[in-house]
């Protein structure tokens, strides 16, 4: 804010103040009002995001068990233990695998659906509604639905597979539970599809038409005109997709017919993702300190991913114009 001072200093030497005093008072009033207006979020952010994060870090340096007062500081012991914790590493590896499958598929499928819906066809709105709807269905209902669909003896999927002569698959236990979770996730790609559709509709028609006039095939127009034009949106979808899939917890929990919060033992190994492991450390093993250390590692991973992707984006994302500042 040095700029403000530099600008104001010479003004004092001049005979006539360029700013009438009432206007200056107004700008001071406006500045104070800004803080007043944004204070709900600033205070909320400090109390409900920054403080809990800091508290989690403090907990991660203790052996707190969630209730007893007999805890003590253990330094970075939890983090050291985490490095050698094969269960935690395995859950992280599963989460990476899940992300590596889900993100490209959902980005590709939502783009594909958006392309289909972007054609001038009749009743396209109806199809858009059908594809969009699952993404607003509450997770509890989603899980109940898919448990019915994936039921071994009475489920829709096995009923259809049977028609093709495939024997009954036990979907909700290992190893199939992993794929069931992926299918459930992909079912909710409607939000991404709507974003892609909006992006496609933002591509100037003249650009694509010009390419067609030049004799480019439909695929080439799509590949070399449309995709580059919407690459910032695709990029954004990848980043948010990665972050979303890293935090998956409720879906495996509910698919596994977990009876109560804390009873994580019913979650099949193949869907025992990182957050499930964190949850288990907190509430099943009563290791609040260790769970907090795992949360912080997760936080750092999310930060690093976001930064890395942001840095590398310049290499492969095409921005039509400089993004507007402020």
């Amino acid at each position, binding site marked *: 804010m040095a700029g403000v001072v530099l600008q104001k200093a010479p003004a004092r030497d001049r005979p006539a103040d360029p700013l009438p005093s009432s206007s200056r008072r*107004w700008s001071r009033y406006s500045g104070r009002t800004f*803080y007043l207006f944004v204070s709900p979020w600033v205070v*909320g952010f400090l109390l409900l995001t920054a403080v*809990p994060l800091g508290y989690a870090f403090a907990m991660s340096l203790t052996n707190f068990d969630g209730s007893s007062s007999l805890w003590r500081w253990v330094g970075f012991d939890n983090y050291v233990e985490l490095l050698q914790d094969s269960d935690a590493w395995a859950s992280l590896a599963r989460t990476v695998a899940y992300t590596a499958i889900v993100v490209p598929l959902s980005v590709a499928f939502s783009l594909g659906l958006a392309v289909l819906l972007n054609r001038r066809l009749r009743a396209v709105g109806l199809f858009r509604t059908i594809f969009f709807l699952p993404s607003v269905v509450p997770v509890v209902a989603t899980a109940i639905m898919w448990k019915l669909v994936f039921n071994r003896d009475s489920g829709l999927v096995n009923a259809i597979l049977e028609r093709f002569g495939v024997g009954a698959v036990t979907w909700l236990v290992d190893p199939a539970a992993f794929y069931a979770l992926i299918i459930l996730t992909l079912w909710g790609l409607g939000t991404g599809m709507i974003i892609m559709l909006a992006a496609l509709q933002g591509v100037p028609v003249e650009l694509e038409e010009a390419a067609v006039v030049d004799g480019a095939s439909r695929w080439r127009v799509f590949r070399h005109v449309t995709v580059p034009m919407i690459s910032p949106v695709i990029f954004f979808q990848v980043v948010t997709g990665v972050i979303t899939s890293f935090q998956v917890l409720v879906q495996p929990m509910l698919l596994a017919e977990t009876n109560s919060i804390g009873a994580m033992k019913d979650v099949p190994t193949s869907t025992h993702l990182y957050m499930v492991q964190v949850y288990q450390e907190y509430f099943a093993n009563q290791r609040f300190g260790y769970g907090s250390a795992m949360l912080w590692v997760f936080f750092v991973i999310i930060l690093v991913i976001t930064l890395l992707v942001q840095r590398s984006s310049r290499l492969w994302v095409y921005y039509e114009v400089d993004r507007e500042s402020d």
Partner: protein
Amino acid sequence: MKATDRAAAGRSYVLLMLLAVLFAGPFLWLVLAALKTLVEWVAVPIHFLPEAPQWNNFTDAVTQINFLAYTGNSLFLSGMYAVLVTLSSALVGFGFARLKGRGKRPLFVVLLATMMLPSILTLIPTYVLFSRVGLVGTYWPWVLWGLAASPYLVFLFRQFFAAIPRDLEDAAIIDGCGYGRIFWRIFLPLSRPVVLTSLLLSFTWMWGDYLAPALLLDIDHTTLSVAITQSYRNPHGDYIPTVQAAAAALYVVPVMVIFLFAQRYFVRSVATSGLKG
């Protein structure tokens, strides 16, 4: 040319129909399960359609648990949160869009960054903190979350307010209006579509939330989302799938109705936030 166009359209329709069946399948199976008897549900080979629709699954769903009370809890929490968070987010959005102040830009960067921050990261530590100060088992956490504004909704409001021409507020300032009145009398009424979007979105978020009520509320004061996952069992402790399906179907009805009548608001909010990445 015409003929190939029509063939292409035909192929698109076949593909769209197939996909529609895939996306609608789970809904259909839920409703069918809710209308079957238990015997029909477990029958081998699978019965696709119930012999006669079993409406009593729905009556069982609302009588086996205190369905009405849980619905009331969900409505109260979601409604209260929606009103509070819409107001607070509109205020903050107005601040970022129309007012100047030191550190505005870094603050906005922090706001955008927190949009990316998974809420689950803070939920468990928040739960521990709240249990220390006696807020677990009360509805106060939702009041606080409501008052704290949602970065996503702030962004939505900010985009809308930033596009409104300056003349409007200049005229009001000349007339002696302070920013409080400008916000309340001019900008908030103008942003009615965004207010509606925000109310609908935040209501459906909270209606659908599972983890926070599961962690923070006991079974008597919890929401419908938690209640239907933990109830509907036979004396052996196994789920009664047909009744649970009926309960889940009832539970999604409000969301479906909101969505079907206000789809364009959902579409617009998603498109605004997604395209500005």
